C-alpha cells in the first residue's frame, strides 16, 4: 500500500488536523492546571500548620521557618499564595524539600533516568510479548489460543510487586541468572522491567487479540481474502491497524501502570529512581516532593495522551475533519 498514500501529506490543515490538535493541547493545559491545584489543595488539607507540614521531619529552626514563610508566601492571603505558586510552577520552580535540604527539581532530575530506563524497557517488553502472543494465536480456536488467553489473563492479574518477588525467587535465588538488586547494567534491568511489563503484556495482549479477531470477521476481511492475499498479510496490512485502535486508547493507562508500578518495583528490587523518592516522600510526608511528583506524572500523562490522540488521527482517517 505504501506507494499509494498519495494525498496524505499536504500540511496539517489540509488533512483536517488543526482542530483536533488545538483542542487536545487546550485540554492538556487544563489537566495540568487542575493537577497543580489538586496538589496545592492536598498541601492545605494536610492536618496541622502548613509550616510544620512543609518542614515535616526536617530540622526545625526559626530561620528555616522564616524561609518557608517567605518561599510559600504564607503570610499572605490564600488566593495570593495560590497565584504565586502557579506562577512559580510556570517558571519551572518546583520548590525546595526541607527534609532533604535540596531543591525538588534537582532531586527529581538526579533520579529520573533510572526510572525512565526502567519504564521504557518494561514498555518494550510488554508490547513485544503482547504482539507476539496476539499475532501468533489470534483467531485460532485451539489449545494454543486458550493457553495464550489464560496466560494473558494471569499476567494482567498479578500485581507487579508479586511478579517481582516471584521472578526474584526463580531467576535470582534459585537459578542465579540475574542480580538480586541494584542498578548495574542491563542484567539488573531485566527482572524489574519484566515484573513491570507483565501487566501491560497481559492487558495489551487481550485487547490486541480481541481486536484482531473482531477485524478478521469484518466484511472487508472477506473482501481482502477474496483478493488472494495470504492470511499473514491480511493480519499485518488490515487487521492489525484495526486492532491497534482500542489498544492505543489504553496508552494513558499504561503510563499510569508504569509510573505507579515503578514505585513498587523499585522497592522490591532496591533500585534507585523516582519511585524510591516518591515512597520516601510519602512516608516522610515531604509534601514539596509529593506535589512535584504529582505534577510530573500529570505532565507525562498529558504529553503521552496528546501523542496518543494524534496517533489516533494517523491510524484512523475517519476521525480527521473535512473531506
Amino acid at each position, binding site marked *: *500500500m505504501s506507494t*499509494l498514500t498519495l494525498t496524505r501529506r499536504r500540511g496539517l490543515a489540509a488533512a483536517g488536523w488543526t482542530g483536533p490538535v488545538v483542542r487536545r493541547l487546550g485540554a492538556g493545559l487544563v489537566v495540568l492546571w487542575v493537577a497543580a491545584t489538586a496538589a496545592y489543595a492536598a498541601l492545605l488539607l494536610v492536618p496541622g500548620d502548613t509550616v510544620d507540614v512543609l518542614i515535616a521531619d526536617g530540622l526545625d529552626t526559626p530561620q528555616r521557618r522564616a524561609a518557608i514563610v517567605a518561599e510559600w508566601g504564607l503570610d499572605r492571603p490564600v488566593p495570593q499564595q495560590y497565584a504565586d505558586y502557579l506562577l512559580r510552577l510556570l517558571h519551572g520552580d518546583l520548590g525546595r524539600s526541607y527534609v532533604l535540604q535540596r531543591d525538588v527539581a534537582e532531586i527529581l532530575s538526579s533520579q529520573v533516568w533510572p526510572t525512565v530506563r526502567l519504564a521504557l524497557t518494561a514498555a518494550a517488553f510488554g508490547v513485544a510479548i503482547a504482539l507476539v502472543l496476539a499475532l501468533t494465536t489470534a483467531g485460532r480456536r485451539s489449545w494454543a489460543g486458550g493457553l495464550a488467553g489464560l496466560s494473558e489473563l494471569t499476567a494482567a492479574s498479578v500485581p507487579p510487586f508479586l511478579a517481582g518477588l516471584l521472578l526474584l525467587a526463580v531467576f535470582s535465588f534459585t537459578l542465579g541468572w540475574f542480580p538480586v538488586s541494584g542498578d548495574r547494567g542491563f542484567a539488573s534491568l531485566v527482572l524489574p522491567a519484566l515484573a513491570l511489563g507483565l501487566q501491560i503484556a497481559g492487558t495489551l495482549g487481550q485487547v490486541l487479540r480481541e481486536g484482531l479477531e473482531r477485524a478478521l470477521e469484518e466484511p472487508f476481511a472477506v473482501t481482502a481474502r477474496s483478493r488472494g492475499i495470504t492470511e499473514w498479510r491480511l493480519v499485518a496490512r488490515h487487521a492489525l491497524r484495526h486492532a491497534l485502535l482500542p489498544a492505543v486508547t489504553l496508552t494513558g493507562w499504561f503510563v499510569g501502570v508504569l509510573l505507579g508500578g515503578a514505585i513498587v518495583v523499585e522497592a522490591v528490587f532496591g533500585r534507585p529512581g523516582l519511585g524510591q523518592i516518591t515512597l520516601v516522600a510519602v512516608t516522610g510526608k515531604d509534601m514539596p516532593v509529593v506535589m512535584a511528583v504529582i505534577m510530573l506524572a500529570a505532565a507525562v500523562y498529558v504529553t503521552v495522551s496528546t501523542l496518543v490522540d494524534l496517533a489516533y488521527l494517523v491510524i484512523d482517517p475517519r476521525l480527521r475533519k473535512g473531506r
Partner: protein
Amino acid sequence: MNLIEIEDLRVTFPRAGVEAVRGVNLSIAEGECVAIVGESGSGKSVTARTLVGLTGQGATVTAGRFDVRGRDARRFGPRDWRRLRGRFAGLVLQDALVSLDPLRTVGAEIAEVLAAHDVVPRAGRKERVLELLDAVGVPEPELRAGQYPHQLSGGLRQRALIASAIAAGPPLLIADEPTTALDVTVQAQILRLLAARRAEGTALLMISHDLAVVSSIADRVLVMKDGVVVEEGPTGRVLSAPERDYTRLLLAAVPSAASRGTRLSAIATGGVPLRTPLPERKVDHGSPVVEVRGLSAEYGSRRVVDDVSFEVHAGETVGVVGESGSGKTTVARLVMGLMRPVAGRVRLDGSPWSELSERERRPRRSVIQVISQNPLDSFDPRYTVGRLVAEPLGGPGRERAAGVAELLERVGLPADIAGRHPRALSGGQRQRVAIARALAPRPRVLVCDEPVSALDVSVQAQVLDLLGEIQAADGTALIFISHDLGVVHHISDRVVVMREGRVVEDGHVDEVFFLPRHDYTRELLGAVPKLATTS
C-alpha cells in the same frame, strides 16, 4: 470447458447446527451471467462464497463434483485457493463502506490485488490503479485513489470495490447483493457497469434478493430456498412462466402498480397464484387529519427540509418517496413532534401541533404513532414483548393482559410470544410487535418510516397486507415513507416525491408514477429495475 462445474454441493456449519446448502448443482460458462435469487437463509451467499473457498470458519463443504476450470477443487489446499481468488474470480460484496478496509485508501485496496498476484510490476501499479478506477467510471482517479472509503459517495465506493475485484482480470465476477443499500439511480449505474463488464466477456454470478435487479442482466436464474435450488431456467422463462409455486408466490409478493388493492401474500393454486382483494378502505375527504404547511427544518445551519406541504385524510395513505438525504425521515420526525421546525407548521386533527410545548402535546400523543425501519432500536432492551405492547395501555393489570393478547392476535402473532424477548424474534415478527404497540393507543395516524425495507419480499408482503387490513378496519391515516417506488405505488393513494429537502412533485400515485411531470421523478422511475414479466 465451463468456468465452474459443481454437482451436489453441500455446506454445513456443524457447530451452529445449520445445513446451509443441501445439494446444489451449478455451472457457469465463460462469459455467462447466472443469478441466484432467494430470501435470507436460502443459502445463496454461502453457495457463492464457496466458489472461492471462503465459506467461513467451521464449515464443512462436500460436493459430488467441484471443478474450477476443469481442475478438481476438492483437492485444493489453502495455497491453491489463494491463487484462484482475485485472479480467477473477483468478489464484490454489498456496501463498500464496510467491504473496503475503512483505514486504507481506495488506491491501496486496489493495488493489493495487483501485488498479491504480481500482475503488474511494482513500478506500474499506481498507474494501473488509476486505469482501473477510470475503467469503472470513477472521475478524477488521481484524487480518488488517495482517498478513504468514507470520503467517497456510496456509488463511487461501490465502483472502487468493483475495480478491486476486476483488477487482476478474472474471467468470473461474483457479485453478492452488489446494489443493496444503494439509491435506485446509483443502483442503475452500478448495474450498467456490471453489464458492461459482462459485455467485455467477464462471466458474472449475481446473488440478489431482488428479482427485478436480476431480470435486467442475467441469462439464467436459480431460485433458492432453504439451501435447495427450487427452480432453474432462462431468466425470461422463470420470471414470466414460473413452474414452481414458490417462485410464483415470490413473484406475486412483489408490490407494484398492478398489485394495488390486493393482498401480496397470494394463495398458491398450482397455476397463477390467486391474489385476494384487500378489504375496502374509506377515505374521508373532509378536513385532513394531518396538515403540513410550508414546513422547514435545519440541522445546524444546513436546511434538510425546505417548504414542504401536504395533507393526509382519515383512511388515506400518503407515500413519501425520495433517495437518501432527501429529508423524508426528518419530515417524519417533524410530523411526530420530535423536532421543532424553523418555519411552517403541522396541524393535527385541525388544531395546532408542531408549535405546542411538549407538555401541551403529551396528552394528544396517542393520536399519532410511529413504526420505524428497525423496530429493535425502538424497544427498550430490557422489555419483553408483553411489556412493550402493554406500556401504552392503561388500566389494571388483567385488562392490560387482555389488551396485549388482543393486539397480538390482531397483528397475527401467537399469544405466547408475549413472554419472549424481541431479540429472539425474526425481523417480520419484530415489525409486527412494533405495529401492535403502535396500535395500542388507538391512533388515528400512523407514520411508517421505511417499515419494510429490512424485510424479505415474502415477509414484506405480509406486513404490507397487515397495514392494509388495519387501515380498512380502523380508518387510520397512513404516512408511508419509503425509498421503494414499487411499495409506495402499491400502498399509497397520493404520493409526495422529495429531493434535497424539497417536494419536487406530488399528486395521485398513478398520475405521478405514470405521467411524471418533473425530470427527477422521471429519472427515479427510469432507474427502477423492471420485472420482465409478460404474463
